[in-house]
């Protein structure tokens, strides 16, 4: 045996940056939360914005209703940003902002807030997520069509590379692809293809000699699931492909510029509502996936809270997750060694497999014309993978402890608190924010704002001018988030992303055979095929659940109307009435169910379709579920209702009940009334 040198590093590594994805209500409350988090040993900030801010609407816009301050902080203008960052040393802080469609705007607000403190843009460190393709594919907070969106991204990159050089202008997100059901191969391939689309767009807008720096500023935001060995291999595969891409496609000479840099939020998709305490173990194992091997260790980590499948986590829940990072970094010996996987045959083999698979998938995307052109293809592939994953859970092939196996449990003391173990945002916040915005508008120099927005529109209409200077000027003048976005919407137009459900493969017949018989029987009695509207009201763009429901309902034999995300209650009610559906299913994951669901029910009544039964799915605490049932919702489903076939059986039953009640086909009270028919048009002709 040859003598081996000490396996330890001469000096332990410095820990990664520790963050907590946080923010709620308004700037003041979030600022207090950030200061407390920093006192606890958090080393960077990760700002969660609410959905109106993310999609470019002011708190007083119709689409913002029920969403203001809900999943993050509401930031409407430079004054809000100033309050948010009050007392935080911006020349030392590293701030990550989960912001995409409106990234250019929030970056401008950040630059202006720093400027007010006399801190030069060149000193600022942080990240704007700024990745639009994954918004089309998974997360849903896009605003503009693909072309103009890619231009905004290219503009922010071109601007920061020269003016805010320590900023990461984009975080290419593979995170949300996994949340949407991506396999490791898909996660790698689509993320790198996405990066290629971005880099190609920037190449047209910066001098060639800057491309090395541009490449070096591109970072990734990845996911890590509980299969942590393979997940670690995935990161090594990405690192390999990234290095090769820089060298071969963009001629990046400096090796440092080609280094694969990423931050991480570990998997939320696999967290369960059943026995939620088990999630702590899952999160810990997932954290190992991104820290174990030194060569591809994460630069920044934020961990979800144990109770994410129940609702919004409280500060204590987030503290518990931060402590996990601290135990890993400061108590274990993790940081004392070089890469522990180097030379591992298993790891090499896994990486080679993943690289090979990813290359094939990247070639398909390239054949379709690149990631922007291939959005439809990738979306359909993700919906399909997610469907397959769910099928394996339902069939028991894939074990989820506490959910489809080992389900008997003692009552959990963790969820026994009065608030059920989650954060509830004060419903008064929305009204406060609306009033504060009115004051802001009344006190600002309106002609200066008008002129700044006119200039913004002019620049947007050009092909080659960078959007950032006009955006920063509008921020300084006091324009609002909604005004900035509306100006661009008028120039760029709006966009609806593909739903991806049309191409999803059917589940095996034997799994849904009984359901099909039921649907046939009920349809026969109805006189026409049972028709189901799946709707996503409000700004929440997390459509993965709604998509799986739509696909399963089709497989059960229903005609399914699914229109994608971001619909107003009036739009959903209008569709339900025009389409003559027999039942409506609504999905909301942002926690705004208490406001939005009653609005949809009201709108259905207004549209004369109040007799159509409504079911709701989402992250809905039991107290809220009771209130929704009180308001007329027929059934409420939460993540613990993972058996889709059982849900389908309920829904078919609801429609059948209506038949029994009326003793006739369900034409709809409205339909009959409007048609002047007391009964019977839709009458079944029972055989």
């Amino acid at each position, binding site marked *: 045996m040859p003598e081996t040198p000490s396996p330890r590093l001469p000096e332990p590594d410095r820990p990664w940056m520790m963050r907590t994805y946080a923010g709620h209500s308004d700037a003041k409350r979030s600022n207090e939360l950030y200061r407390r988090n920093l006192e606890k040993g958090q080393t960077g900030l990760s700002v969660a914005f609410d959905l109106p801010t993310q999609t470019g609407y002011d708190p007083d816009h119709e689409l913002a209703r029920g969403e203001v301050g809900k999943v993050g902080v509401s930031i409407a203008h430079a004054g809000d940003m100033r309050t948010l960052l009050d007392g935080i040393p911006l020349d030392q802080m590293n701030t990550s902002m989960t912001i995409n469609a409106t990234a250019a705007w929030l970056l401008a607000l950040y630059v202006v807030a720093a400027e007010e403190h006399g801190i030069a843009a060149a000193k600022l460190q942080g990240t704007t997520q700024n990745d639009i393709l994954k918004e089309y594919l998974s997360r849903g907070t896009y605003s503009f069509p693909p072309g103009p969106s890619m231009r905004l991204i290219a503009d922010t990159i071109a601007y920061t590379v020269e003016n805010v050089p320590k900023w990461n202008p984009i975080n290419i997100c593979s995170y949300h692809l996994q949340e949407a059901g991506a396999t490791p191969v898909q996660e790698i391939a689509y993320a790198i293809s996405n990066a290629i689309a971005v880099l190609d767009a920037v190449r047209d807008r910066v001098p060639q000699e800057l491309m090395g720096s541009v490449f070096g500023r591109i970072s990734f935001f990845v996911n890590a699931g509980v299969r942590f060995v393979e997940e670690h291999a995935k990161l090594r595969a990405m690192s390999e492909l990234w290095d090769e891409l820089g060298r071969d496609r963009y001629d990046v000479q400096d090796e440092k510029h080609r280094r694969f840099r990423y931050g991480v939020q570990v998997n939320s998709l696999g967290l369960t509502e059943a026995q939620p305490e088990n999630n702590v173990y899952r999160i810990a194992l997932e954290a190992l996936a991104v820290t174990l091997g030194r060569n591809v260790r994460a630069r920044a980590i934020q961990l979800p809270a144990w109770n994410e499948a129940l609702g919004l986590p409280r500060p204590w829940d987030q503290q518990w997750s931060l402590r996990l990072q601290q135990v890993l970094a400061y108590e274990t010996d993790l940081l004392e060694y070089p890469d522990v996987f180097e030379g591992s045959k298993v790891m090499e083999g896994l990486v080679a497999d993943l690289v090979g698979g990813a290359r094939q998938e990247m070639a398909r995307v390239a054949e379709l014309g690149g990631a922007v052109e291939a959005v439809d293809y990738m979306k359909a592939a993700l919906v399909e993978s997610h469907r397959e994953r769910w099928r394996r859970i339902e069939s028991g092939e894939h074990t989820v402890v506490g959910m489809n196996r080992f389900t008997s449990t003692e009552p959990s003391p963790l969820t026994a608190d009065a608030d059920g173990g989650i954060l509830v945002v004060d419903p008064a916040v929305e009204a406060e924010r609306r009033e504060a915005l009115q004051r802001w508008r009344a006190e600002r120099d309106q002609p200066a704002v008008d002129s700044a927005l006119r200039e913004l529109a002019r620049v947007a209409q050009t092909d080659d001018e960078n959007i950032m200077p006009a955006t920063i000027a509008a921020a300084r003048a006091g324009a609002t988030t909604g005004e900035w976005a509306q100006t661009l919407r008028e120039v760029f137009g709006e*966009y609806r992303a593909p739903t991806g459900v049309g191409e999803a493969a059917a589940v095996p017949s034997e799994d849904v055979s009984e359901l099909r018989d039921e649907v046939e029987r009920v349809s026969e009695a109805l006189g026409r095929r049972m028709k189901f509207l799946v709707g996503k009201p409000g700004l929440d763009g997390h459509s993965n659940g709604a998509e799986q429901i739509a696909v399963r309902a089709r497989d059960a034999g229903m005609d399914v109307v699914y229109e994608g995300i971001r619909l107003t209650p009036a739009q959903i009610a209008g569709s339900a009435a025009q389409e003559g559906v027999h039942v409506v299913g609504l999905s909301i994951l942002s926690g705004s169910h208490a406001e939005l669901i009653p609005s949809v029910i009201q709108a259905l009544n207004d549209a004369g379709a109040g007799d159509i039964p409504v079911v709701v799915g989402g992250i809905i605490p039991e107290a809220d579920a009771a209130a929704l049932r009180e308001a007329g919702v027929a059934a409420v489903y939460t993540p613990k209702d993972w058996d889709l076939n059982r849900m389908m059986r309920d829904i078919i039953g609801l429609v059948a009940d209506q038949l029994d009640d009326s003793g006739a086909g369900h034409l709809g009270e409205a339909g009959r009334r409007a048609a002047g028919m007391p009964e019977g048009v839709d009458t079944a002709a029972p055989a």
Partner: protein
Amino acid sequence: MSAAPADAEQLGARLRERDLTAAPSVLNLVESRGEAARAQTAALLAAVSPAALGGEAPAHIVGVTGPPGVGKSTLLSRLAAEWRRRDRTVAVLAVDPSSRRSGGALLGDRARIERDPDDMGLFIRSSATGDRLGGLAPATRAAAAALAVAFDVVVIETVGVGQSETEVVDVADTVAVVVQPGSGDVLQFLKSGIMEIPDVLVVNKTDLGASAVRARADLGAALRSLGPTAADTAVVAVSSLSPGSGIAELVDTLDEHRAALDLPARRLRGRRRHALADFTAEHGQRGLRALGGRREAERWLATQDPSSDVATLQRALEERCA
């Protein structure tokens, strides 16, 4: 329940008065299959027939068809907006294929049609083809005939490349086939006669640039080479990506086709084919009903001798339904 033709006549009267709020009930009725509903549908169609109206229904019935992914629904969204801008009311009947296995369907095209929920002048209804071949849902013809009395424009949107969705030609006054640049298969289908020659050929996605110009030229040349009838086909280039281009020209072109058309002759031909298609379908459906429906029939077949040939099985089915 008693079938009350009076109700259907009342619906017909509302359509004749151009009461657009009748549309959902009309669709619920014509899509229903029971005996009572069928009697009422017949009564409704009689109430809006050329005989009752003293002429053809006034709407322009437009068929919009093309292969998946060509951007039909985005184009339709632009078209609907343009028609509304010209103050015309629009009903869209969007037809999606059903799954052969489950009988269910995902009706997704609504998703891309932008609309104001307060605008009563735009009605969208999605339906599935069910068992039926030919590209239309079982009730599409009846729905188009009824809505054509109340709306200014009735659009029938179907998916396909011109092979199986032949029925739309019988129902629509004007058929527009949508293709995108680089779709050589359409040229082949046209030349070989697999695809019927459309009234208007729309080249979408012209934002793709030079290839779109080439596609338009290629299609024009191909059509001319097919003889005088095909040479009349208008080729329009559009882009439905924001802000859109060529949409107003497309509407003008559709209008011109309709103005030059012998409408009564085309509608008459359509009604005769409609009757024949319904007759054919009804005979098949009646047989299936006698067997207790498709799934029941499949189950019964599964109990038969696995070595039976098709002719034997068919004879057995005939005997069973007799």
